[in-house]
């Protein structure tokens, strides 16, 4: 398996706090990797650096062999690494279809292509009924689905999902999970950050566990979850 993503020795400091401390991992084509770790373990910071929102203090991030550490966020997105936020960021002053067309155009699709693709994704995510509604009129979960849909207007090389299942209705969670599973089966690579352990166990064959800015464990999900260090990091030393 060739490395789609190769992160080496990634480091980020905020003042005296070392938020991410020499993190390294690789992700192969079509892999679905879960990111675990308690709050403050550096998951979101790693994602922020990967998606170009933060400049790493040290280390290298390679996407398909190209170093993207230092590139602007939009260039990274167009290069095929796309990011979905923990807090939803859809354009509330636009309709659902406008949101999708904007994303599609940004990723280089023409108008017709983008419209066709938008309808396809909306159908997949059961949002077609809301096509012309304003994003501000959608529920929180629907907005999350919409943002998710935007990320898939043009299939990325890898999608970085930050807590996609948090605070959404169970039926929508199912829709989302099905979509991830189905596309992953077709070769779509993912990094999935989630606290929802059952979903991670269900979806991800492999997990990377972070604690205090470092990689604590990296391997097949069942193995990692059995490691005492991981249990301790998650549940506290006295457990």
């Amino acid at each position, binding site marked *: 398996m060739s490395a789609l993503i190769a992160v080496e020795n990634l480091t980020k400091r905020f003042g005296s706090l070392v938020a991410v401390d020499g993190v390294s991992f690789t992700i192969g084509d079509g892999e679905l990797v879960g990111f675990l770790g308690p709050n403050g373990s550096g998951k979101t910071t790693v994602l922020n650096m990967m998606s170009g929102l933060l400049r790493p203090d040290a280390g290298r991030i390679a996407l398909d062999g190209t170093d993207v550490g230092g590139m602007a*966020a939009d260039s990274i997105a167009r290069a095929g690494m*796309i990011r979905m936020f923990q807090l939803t960021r859809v354009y509330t*002053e*636009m309709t659902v279809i*406008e949101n999708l067309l904007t994303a599609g155009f*940004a990723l280089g699709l023409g108008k017709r292509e983008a419209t066709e693709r938008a309808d396809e994704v909306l159908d997949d995510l059961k949002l077609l009924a809301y096509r012309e509604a304003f994003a501000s009129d959608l529920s929180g979960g629907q907005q999350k689905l919409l943002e998710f849909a935007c990320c898939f207007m043009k299939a990325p090389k890898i999608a970085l999902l930050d807590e996609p299942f948090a605070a959404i209705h169970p039926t929508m969670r199912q829709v989302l999970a099905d979509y991830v599973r189905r596309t992953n089966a077709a070769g779509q690579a993912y990094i999935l950050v989630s606290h929802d352990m059952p979903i991670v166990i269900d979806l991800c064959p492999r997990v990377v566990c972070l604690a205090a800015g470092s990689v604590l464990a990296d391997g097949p999900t069942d193995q990692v979850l059995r490691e005492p260090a991981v249990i301790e990091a998650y549940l506290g030393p006295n457990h």
Partner: protein
Amino acid sequence: MLSSMLVSGLITGTFYALMALGLTMIFGVLRIVNFAHGEFYMIGGFAYVLLYHNLGVPIAVALPAAVLAGGTLGWIVEKLLIRPIYAEFGGRQQGRDEYAIIVTFALSILLIAAMTKIVGPWSLQGPRLIDGPPLLLAGVRVSPHQIAALGIALAFLFGTLYLLNYSLWGRQIRAVAQNRSAAAVMGVDVGKVSTIVFATAGGLAALAGALLSNMISPSPDVGAFPAIKSYVIIVLGGLGSPLGALIGGLLLGVIESLGAIYISFSYRDTYGLALLVLVLLLRPNGLFGETRREV
């Protein structure tokens, strides 16, 4: 008298709106106030007048050339001076506003000084678009030139609003205005959007300068007056709101016109400010300002 004041106010307001639209777009996308906005107006006015008078370029060419001059200037300014604000990773947050203020303010002084050096400090009246006897519109004599200028201004105003709302690039601009980092992460080329916005704003201001050059002869310092009006308008209409710029512009034109007659001409410039204070008391985000913003 009332109807003629309304007509006169709406005409003035249309040109105010043309200036303010670009300024509010820049604010929307870049979160900065361009203090050199009046100088785009001045450059447009001079480009039009000088091309016509000194080089004998026909009006039909001089007018688009003036718009192009303003657009090109905006494009260059964005690439050279504004880019450092956001070029690196979501932008330098510290000192960002101060940087923008100083850079655009210095640019304004530079452009005025450069123009004074090149063409001298005097004012030069621009040619009319069309000649002909004036028409009477609610007691106001409106020359065919003014009607043509008004028509072009309205076409550009509504054209820009339409493109912002319905074109692909327009949506990109709105996306960046609503949430810059989200747009960037979605792959929207925020650099290109910023450049387009600056060039468009420059072009619109230059167009206003050229269209008004017959009524207000351009001189190097002519930009100060429309720029100040634009600052009032964009706060009045809601920072970053294109519709707010349009409505705010027309409103300011009418209020000033009515106040000048029914209260006193001497305090004309204060009526807009009084209205602004009133609006801000009732609606702190301006008439069409957003009340919330996603994080």
